[in-house]
């Protein structure tokens, strides 16, 4: 009985209060396209809650539930179970949560659902910090990136979410980027299909011009550079077998990537070199089939 006061060609409205140039907004449109109408959405508070709505208004055409920050996967698991018990296994249940709600506070409930094999689809859109609360650092904030809680640049490494998820031996796991939408589209289709047998997980790179201090028009460019510099490798793990979906034989200079983002302003040459070694090593591991 959703009262349609606006038109849109997808399952979310064209006018969503996401910032101009928001990577999540672009990603969400592809997610919705892959999901289709026979789906249900679970969103924690955060930027994705802009898709939940406000008051009696929503910008989403499929049923949804806004949960708490740490239990997206648990809500999704419960919803899926409820549908299953009513013979509606065909409904896709999606958790769409940011990095904070996934790699930090939501890791426990995510791990629980993955280990149990709950047949849910989970997309973590990673903008590498807590953006809706004002750009605070998360476990997914990359080394040397500025946030309001890493004012001198983050020290230490980001948490390897794909490795953690992979440890649960789920049917489908992939990284994706809004810079490579065809690749993302294919992965969404595979992930949706994989939920027939178990959990599917996509870790989506989604630039945030507000938090990254980048120009809105460069969001897609930055997302592409993240891949072509090897900062965000694109791969998938299907039933335990890893394959890189976008090979980067000759990575572009990291400075091409960093210079577009104010959060890396002041990064030293030595630090750039350290990142280079780190991302190359990570890429080499992937080439060997390891996360």
């Amino acid at each position: 009985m959703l009262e349609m006061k606006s038109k849109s060609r997808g399952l979310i409205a064209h006018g969503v209060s996401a910032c101009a140039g928001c990577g999540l907004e672009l990603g969400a449109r592809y997610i919705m396209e892959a999901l289709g109408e026979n789906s249900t959405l679970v969103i924690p508070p955060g930027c994705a809650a802009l898709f939940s709505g406000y008051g009696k208004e929503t910008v989403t055409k499929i049923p949804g539930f806004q949960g708490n920050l740490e239990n997206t996967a648990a809500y999704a698991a419960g919803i899926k179970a409820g549908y299953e018990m009513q013979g509606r296994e065909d409904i896709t249940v999606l958790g769409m949560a940011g990095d904070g709600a996934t790699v930090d506070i939501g890791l426990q409930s995510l791990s629980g659902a993955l280990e149990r094999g709950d047949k849910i689809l989970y997309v973590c859109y990673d903008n590498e910090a807590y953006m809706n609360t004002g750009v605070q650092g998360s476990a997914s904030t990359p080394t040397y990136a500025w946030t309001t809680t890493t004012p001198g640049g983050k020290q230490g490494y980001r948490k390897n979410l794909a490795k953690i998820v992979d440890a649960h031996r789920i049917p489908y796991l992939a990284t994706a980027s809004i810079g490579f939408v065809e690749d993302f589209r294919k992965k969404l289709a595979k992930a949706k299909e994989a939920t027939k047998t178990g959990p599917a997980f996509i870790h989506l790179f989604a630039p945030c011009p507000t938090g990254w201090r980048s120009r809105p028009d460069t969001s897609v460019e930055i997302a592409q550079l993240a891949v072509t510099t090897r900062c965000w490798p694109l791969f998938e793990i299907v039933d335990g077998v890893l394959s890189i979906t976008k090979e980067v034989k000759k990575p572009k200079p990291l400075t091409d990537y960093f210079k577009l983002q104010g959060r890396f302003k002041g990064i030293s040459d030595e630090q750039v070199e350290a990142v280079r070694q780190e991302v190359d090593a990570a890429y080499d591991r992937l080439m060997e089939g390891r996360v």
Partner: protein
Amino acid sequence: MKRVMLDGNGAATEGMRLARIRVVSAYPITPQSPISEKLADYVTDGTLDAKYIRVESEHSAMSCAIGAQLTGVRAGTATASVGLALMHEVLGVAAGCRVPIVMPVVNRSLVSPWSLWCDHQDAMAERDGGWMQFYAESAQEVLDLILIAYKLAEKNDVLLPAMVCLDGFFLSHMPDAVYVPAQEDVDKFLPAYKNDNLKLDPDDPMFINDLTGSNEFMEMRFQQAVAFDYAQDLMPGVMAEFEEAFGRKYSMVEAYECEDAEAVLVSLGSMSGTIKHTVDMMREQGRKVGMLKITSFRPFPAEAIRELIGHVPHIGVIDRSASLGSETGPVCNEVRSALQVLDKAPEVQGFVAGLGGRDVPPTTIEEAFDTLLNDKTVAAVKWLDVQDNALRLREVDA
């Protein structure tokens, strides 16, 4: 209906089975674990047609239950103590989204100190969160109150989640003969769940639990407050229907020997039985004492309490939890405020007893009655049975 030996946990499990829960999300915790285990047995052996989600925490247990129930099935979980505390955040979601989950809470102290045993601090910490709270005196009451709670909680004017509280160990692990109704009789009393309010269904999309502005938030809370009023109005009818169907009588508050009583003790849960026992003993000695048991703590039956004990000169309330920093315990505060509107408001003495599993035997109850009858009342709460050396329990060399 058959009569079988069940402890409180067993009775709770039977209640959930008879309510035909379709999704179970349970996490073990002492002294609730037998409920989680028995439900797993029932799902495995097919006694219960449900999906069992072996969650990794109580927080997820309640989250799963909310999610499942929003799709249109009854979802069951149970917890105790710190598990309930861990659920705290999501309990508010169930209440605010008006998801009428019924959950056994096996009362156990909160940390610190650590304790495995009974008191009501865990449930009292949730008293204002929008859940109904019923306290059982016996294993039979656990089962019956679960069925009553479902029937009431799911009424369209109510739609509030409910905790059925049972004292850890004293009820949860104390076998007693319990009448277990037949499934077909329960089905008549409690028809299949129909979610007619907020519902997740791709055939009828809506977005549940989105952000609400300050222009509407208060109204949402007000809706919940009104629902508690309805719950209070409708509860006697539901209990009458229950009596009609199963022959056992319930009320929001039960008065025992209160009419001519000079002193009455008010309490919740299993302690009420011990007070009744003590009242019987003291009545044999010609002492006019009585007991008031609050079965429904939320909604709080203030009017009924005024009617039943407003005339009693000496009233005491035994709290099985402390309201630290307050003049008296949580139940006592409520009883006082219920009675103070009377023209001649009786004085209400607060007692705290039975924390951390300390037994409340008849001798302790008698001591409380003595305090009331011999005018030894004090303004502040009186802790019963506390060792004299309470402040020097851990002495070390200076």
